[in-house]
């Protein structure tokens, strides 16, 4: 026994030593405070009002990651250099689930970019979010339209300015294909249906769609319904719907769903490149528009951010391989309804340096600094179109800055999470799979308590 025990003993001792070393290792912290203040140079002039917090750290949490996170860090680099405030950004795929855990657990980030006004309201109700400072509010009011600001205003208190935005009212198509076949971009709903018929007669299914998105399966279909709802009804009715002042199974909602169904549930129109109507439920949203590049589908309704989904080497431009046109209104005389989304810069602490960053992110300087780096859209009125290089982003900014546009936020993000990110999604999957509109809407209505 003793013979065997030796090496094991050594192992055990090594293990214990390892533990001890590990424990001591965690005691050492590094504190490097570099005070490279070049605040007086000319390029730092716009940041003058944010001065005085050198050496402070601000932690930001969001769902932005990888390449876009790099661009984010680049966009506030000059601000960091000039003010000496260190901005640490941390992006996670599990942002929506993690943020409540972190906040409840007392480990809240200083700032969070929250894409769901519904989630923001949750933090306000629990007294966890901090109201925006007067400076931030003034800056936001100067740069964003009231349409936007109302989504981060809860019970009359303003909680944070929007940051990035996306426009969801887009239909992707192939300019090349349209030119070859002699089709033109429709500007009214009726034209779009006529075009769909023409395309269907030419032998390919005009529309392709896909709503599979892991545990969020169903959301692309909710966007469809919201977009159509904004067209069949007035924005006021849309607001009543998202705030539950009218029931979910109101006849006006049913009308919108059925109108979306004339495309989505029409075997003649869908699902180009994939199969029948039911294949919509099993097609990943990211792949859903790709048949356009293969000529198997002509139209795909998806947000501006779909530009990132095209394979490398696809030219996204008005004269390129793919581009998007505005999802036309039914009655153009009533204005241009625009469905979109965006994230709101919400604070969980009210240290002065956090408020300085929050104000800066609402400013025109920031919006232009980020826009210059590319692949970004904002509803910030100060965004200079010359700084937006990407054609699809340019079109989005134009639509957002257009005075005739009536902007409304993605409805499923406004509803309580149990509905907007729960039964609404699942209901849409059932609807695609053949359930009738009335039953689906009744089901969603009964889940909204």
């Amino acid at each position, binding site marked *: 026994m003793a013979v065997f025990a030796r090496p094991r003993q050594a192992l055990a001792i090594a293990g214990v030593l390892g533990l001890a070393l*590990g424990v001591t290792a965690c005691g050492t*912290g590094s504190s490097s405070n570099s005070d490279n203040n070049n605040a007086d140079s000319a390029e730092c002039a716009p940041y003058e009002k944010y001065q005085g917090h050198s050496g402070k750290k601000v932690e930001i949490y969001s769902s932005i990651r990888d390449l876009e996170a790099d661009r984010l860090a680049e966009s506030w680099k000059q601000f960091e250099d000039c003010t000496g405030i260190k901005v640490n950004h941390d992006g996670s795929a599990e942002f929506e689930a993690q943020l409540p855990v972190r906040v409840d657990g007392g*480990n809240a980030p200083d700032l969070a970019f929250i894409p769901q006004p519904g989630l923001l309201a949750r933090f306000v109700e629990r007294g966890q979010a901090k109201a925006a400072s007067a400076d931030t509010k003034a800056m936001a009011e100067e740069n964003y339209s009231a349409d936007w600001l109302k989504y981060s205003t809860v019970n009359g208190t303003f909680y944070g300015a929007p940051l990035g935005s996306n426009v969801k009212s887009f239909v992707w198509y192939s300019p090349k294909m349209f030119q070859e076949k002699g089709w033109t971009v429709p500007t009214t709903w009726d034209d779009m249906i006529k075009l769909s018929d023409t395309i269907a007669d030419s032998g390919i299914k005009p529309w392709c769609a896909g709503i599979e998105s892991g545990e969020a399966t169903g959301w692309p279909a909710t966007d469809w319904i919201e977009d159509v709802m904004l067209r069949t009804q007035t924005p006021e009715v849309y607001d009543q719907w998202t705030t539950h002042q009218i029931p979910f199974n109101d006849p006006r909602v049913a009308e919108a769903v059925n109108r979306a169904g004339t495309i989505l549930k029409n075997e003649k129109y869908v699902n180009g490149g994939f199969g029948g109507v039911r294949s919509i439920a099993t097609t990943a949203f990211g792949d859903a528009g790709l048949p356009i590049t293969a000529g198997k589908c002509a139209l795909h309704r998806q947000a501006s951010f779909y530009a990132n989904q095209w394979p490398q080497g696809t030219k996204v431009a008005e004269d390129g391989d793919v581009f998007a046109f505005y999802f036309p209104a039914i009655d153009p005389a009533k204005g241009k309804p625009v469905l979109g989304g965006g994230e709101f810069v919400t604070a969980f602490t009210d240290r002065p340096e956090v408020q300085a960053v929050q104000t800066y992110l609402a400013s025109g300087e920031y919006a232009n600094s980020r826009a210059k780096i590319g692949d970004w859209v904002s509803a910030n009125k100060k965004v200079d179109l010359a700084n937006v290089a990407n054609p699809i982003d340019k079109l989005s900014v134009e639509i957002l800055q257009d005075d005739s546009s009536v902007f409304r936020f993605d409805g499923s993000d406004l509803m309580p999470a149990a509905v907007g990110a729960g039964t609404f999604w699942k209901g849409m999957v059932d609807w695609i799979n053949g359930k009738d509109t009335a039953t689906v809407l009744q089901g969603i209505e009964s889940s909204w308590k």
Partner: protein
Amino acid sequence: MTTTTPPVAAGTQDTSGRSTRVSRVRKRLSGRTATLVTIVIAVVWTIPTFGLFVSSFRPEAQLKTTGWWTFFSDPQFTLQNYQDVLFGRSSNSGQLAGYFINSLVITLPSVLFPIAFAALAAYALAWINFRGRDWIYISIFALQIVPLQMALVPLLSFFSRGVSLGGVTLMPAWNLDGAQNFAQVWFAHTCFALPFAVYLLHNFIAQLPKDLMEAARVDGATHPKIFRTIILPLITPALAALGIFQFLWVWNDLLVALIFAGGSDVTAPLTVRLAEMAGTRGNEWQRLTAGAFVSIVVPLIVFLSLQRYFVRGLLSGSVKG
């Protein structure tokens, strides 16, 4: 893996009823039908992994439009996915190697701590007589049914706010920063692993023959001495088995790491980086195929090098002697 005993050898030992039954089972399990069933199961279980493996070498455009099986009719080969994963383009996230090291720094203590504590606790619960011993064991055992997710918020609050009861601070907040967050992750993993580890090791240790401990005690050995010279060598297979379990669990863990280590490149493990790599809207998911195989390398090495103990550890629980 290769533990096929020739049936002849087993047959010669047919003296007692027990070994006849064993050999009958053994014969049945090594029959032709059984082998066929095993092969079918193995193939079916490997297909998804194999598909993923094939996918990891396919170009992005192909991968996103067609199934992996088209590779055989239209083979297009690329190492771009591995290139992206290993030498990623994301500048502020740094290279993958850093996350590899973070994963190791998280995993090793998170495996050693619970095993060390559990072995000591299991010994005490099995061989030291004290009042309430069984109740302690039962309550530890019962803790296994508490889902990890339920403990996340309280544990996080424990780290970031400390503990205070009626205004009296019992424990201050930890206030950790940067690399110090590793301590939180170790603590969390150790907490979550202990109930099962204690339960498993207790079962092994309690089954050791009583004569051994008594003989040692007669010879004047103390509890630490018995633990070191008798228990530890005997339960090595069990420790290794537990080590593999815990290693795989911690290595593959995303949830605990996300909450307690955060997403910064100082502390985030490989799993967090891989989850980020798909891009903000999951549009770069082709990288995940290659990422899966990169992250699988270490667990595979651990498993293959320790599997000898793994099989022995499983057996030593069921077969006495």
